[in-house]
């Protein structure tokens, strides 16, 4: 293994889905399988990684028609994901053992393409930031991820209570950073573009103030704190300082905050309305840098499906959010390449390693999952990517029940070609197997 973490090898998966060989040079005649049954894939120049893990997606489900577990998992599989953390801002909120069990039943009755879906719980009842949920019973029922995502915990005491309650557990307390007073009734980033368009702006302080407060609270009590969807340079700086001072916290960035900046809003297309909002290019650069220097641990999608009729409303009233599961790898990879020419795999080895770390290795570590290493003799469990292949997403490609992708018609680099989950072939040649 070189410093990038990439290893060059051929790989054989037998018809039962077992990794039969990994080697620099495989002699097919020496394989312990019937070679006539082997489908050979010309995957030269491709890379395999442990399936991606998304710590942050909205699968809606229950009664919502914008997405369900099946459509969400199909989108995830096409994006190379094997594991999803489903956010609790459902309607009604997922904030009790009952609601978690109900969601799990729904999942087990759904065709999830082998993608594992875990349910996160709200931190407060109804996600209204006031009364904490019954952590104890939720933990007893194997809930390990708590967030009021969609809203931040504005009340300092409520946050402190949550931190103290979860201190010493292996649970993750994930914060949607949004200080209400600074958020105002904003629609997009507060700045030049919002001023030009005459749209209400969201100050970066909405994020930074709450992150600073949380870091202060973390210095008093220790918990597995995770800062969600960072969007501004100051946040990256705050996390860096906190980590340098020895605090244990993790954080994530979305592919869209790496890929787009606020000028996309000049189109006034509600598909670019997202919370936190797309920020100026300087912030985009800081987020990419934060990912490269390991300040940012995770790339998480914040996949937020909204049906067309709501995204066709005026931008002021249309809901926040965009699709992200199918395009996550390519969007993140493209943004890190930053227009660099690729002649061989070596030219993008560093970017691939960074994405693998942020989309697979780190979320696995944070969530306490296996590390996903591909081992001979074990069930095949990996995603195969062709970094040299470009893709342009069309409406027809979208597996979600919603169409609110901001990437439609954009050239993205790198393509998810194959996905094996627990020995089962889920994606072949970019197409779902069922």
């Amino acid at each position, binding site marked *: 293994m070189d410093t990038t973490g990439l290893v060059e090898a051929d790989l054989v998966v037998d018809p039962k889905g077992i990794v039969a060989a990994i080697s620099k040079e495989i002699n097919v005649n020496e394989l312990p399988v019937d070679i006539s049954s082997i489908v050979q894939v010309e995957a030269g120049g491709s890379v395999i990684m442990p399936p991606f893990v998304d710590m942050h997606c909205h699968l809606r489900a229950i009664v919502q028609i914008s997405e369900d577990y099946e459509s969400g998992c199909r989108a995830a599989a096409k994006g190379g994901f094997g594991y999803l953390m489903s956010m609790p801002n459902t309607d009604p909120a997922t904030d009790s053992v009952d609601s978690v069990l109900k969601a799990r039943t729904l999942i087990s009755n759904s065709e999830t393409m082998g993608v594992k879906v875990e349910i996160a719980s709200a931190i407060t009842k109804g996600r209204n930031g006031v009364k904490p949920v019954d952590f104890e019973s939720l933990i007893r029922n194997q809930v390990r991820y708590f967030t009021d995502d969609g809203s931040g915990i504005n009340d300092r005491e409520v946050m402190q209570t949550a931190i103290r309650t979860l201190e010493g557990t292996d649970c993750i307390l994930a914060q949607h950073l949004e200080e209400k007073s600074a958020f105002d009734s904003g629609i997009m980033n507060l700045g030049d573009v919002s*001023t030009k368009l005459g749209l209400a702006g969201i100050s970066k302080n909405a994020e930074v103030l709450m992150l600073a407060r949380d870091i202060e609270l973390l210095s008093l009590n220790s918990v597995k704190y995770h800062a969600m969807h960072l969007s501004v340079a100051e946040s990256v700086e705050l996390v860096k300082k906190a980590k340098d001072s020895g605090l244990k916290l993790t954080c994530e960035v979305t592919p869209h905050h790496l890929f787009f900046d606020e000028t996309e809003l000049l189109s006034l297309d509600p598909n670019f309305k997202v919370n936190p909002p797309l920020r100026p290019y300087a912030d985009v650069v800081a987020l990419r840098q934060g990912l490269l220097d390991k300040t940012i641990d995770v790339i998480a999608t914040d996949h937020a499906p909204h049906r067309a009729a709501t995204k066709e409303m005026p931008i002021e009233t249309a809901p926040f959010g965009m699709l992200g599961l199918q395009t996550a790898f390519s969007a993140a990879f493209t943004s890190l390449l930053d227009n660099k020419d690729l002649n061989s795999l070596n030219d993008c080895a560093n970017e691939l390693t960074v994405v693998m770390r942020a989309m697979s290795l780190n979320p696995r570590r944070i969530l306490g999952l296996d590390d996903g290493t591909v081992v001979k003799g074990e069930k095949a469990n990996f995603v195969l990517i062709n970094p040299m292949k470009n893709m342009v997403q069309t409406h027809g490609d979208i597996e979600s029940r919603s169409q609110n992708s901001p990437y439609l018609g954009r050239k993205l680099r790198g393509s998810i070609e194959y996905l094996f989950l627990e020995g089962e072939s889920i994606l072949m040649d970019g197409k779902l197997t069922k």
Partner: protein
Amino acid sequence: MVNFIDIEKFTADELLEVAELAENYKNFDLNSPIFLNNRDKIVALIFLENSTRTRISFEIAAKKLGLTVIGFDSEKSSLEKGETIKDTVLTLKALGVNAIVLRASSASSVNQVSKWVDIPVINAGNAMRSHPTQAMGDFVTIREAISQGRFKSENINSFDDFSKLKIGIVGDIIHSRVARSLGELFERFGAKTYLIGPEELLPKFDIGFRVEGITDDFKTCLPELDIIIALRIQLERLTEPLLVNPIFYRERYGITGSLLESAKPSTLFMHPGPQVRDLEIDSDIIDSDRSLILKQVENSIYSRMAVLTKTMGLEIDGINNL
């Protein structure tokens, strides 16, 4: 010219063509029968936000062109019953409407509508973003004043001297779509734009067009200006109560007789309306020959005629040869 949504989307030449056509219309006998050919063309005026002058101006403009006009406002429409704007415009298109004039309280609706239908869409004001036909009417008014020799003392004798103009926009800049469209237009033709008003009503970031100066000190800036455009304080758009009180506002930013004393004798006054008399601008100034306000109203009709003609591709014999 397919749609007419934002001034900044057009080149100086394109904008000049619209202005010149408007000026031709102004000098033309509008009772001429050549406009009768347009009767089978239908313009829908969709006004989803209150408007009197713009709506009437568009209606007169369309009628002068011989177009068939259907009016439409949200209170009396299916939009009130939960229909989306998309369904409304698709329905209008299916009913045979040939162009849509849209006023909306949303910044995005006019852009969205222009993607959903393949007929011309004309922006009659979208939230705080743009009011391009108002800007065109004001442009024609300023061109007219130049050609009448109103700025001769400043050595501004023809449109070629437009870039010498110093224009102050005074008042509620931040909430003003008119300020944004005018600023974009003045930038196209090189005039210098000054933004003047109490700090809370001035932009705190780049507003998107070239600004020569931005100040809360009107008195100091005033002697330089050739044109002063006063704006209404848009109380309905304020999210927090105004800090500045009306007496203070009038004293510092109102166009009053005493203020006039420090202006150049050639300085002219404009207001896109509706104006609040004796707060933003004194009655005797509104009614004086230093005010271009009624000319703005009149020219808005010809400008809208020109915009309708250009976007709808109306062919009217003779008019372009005038």
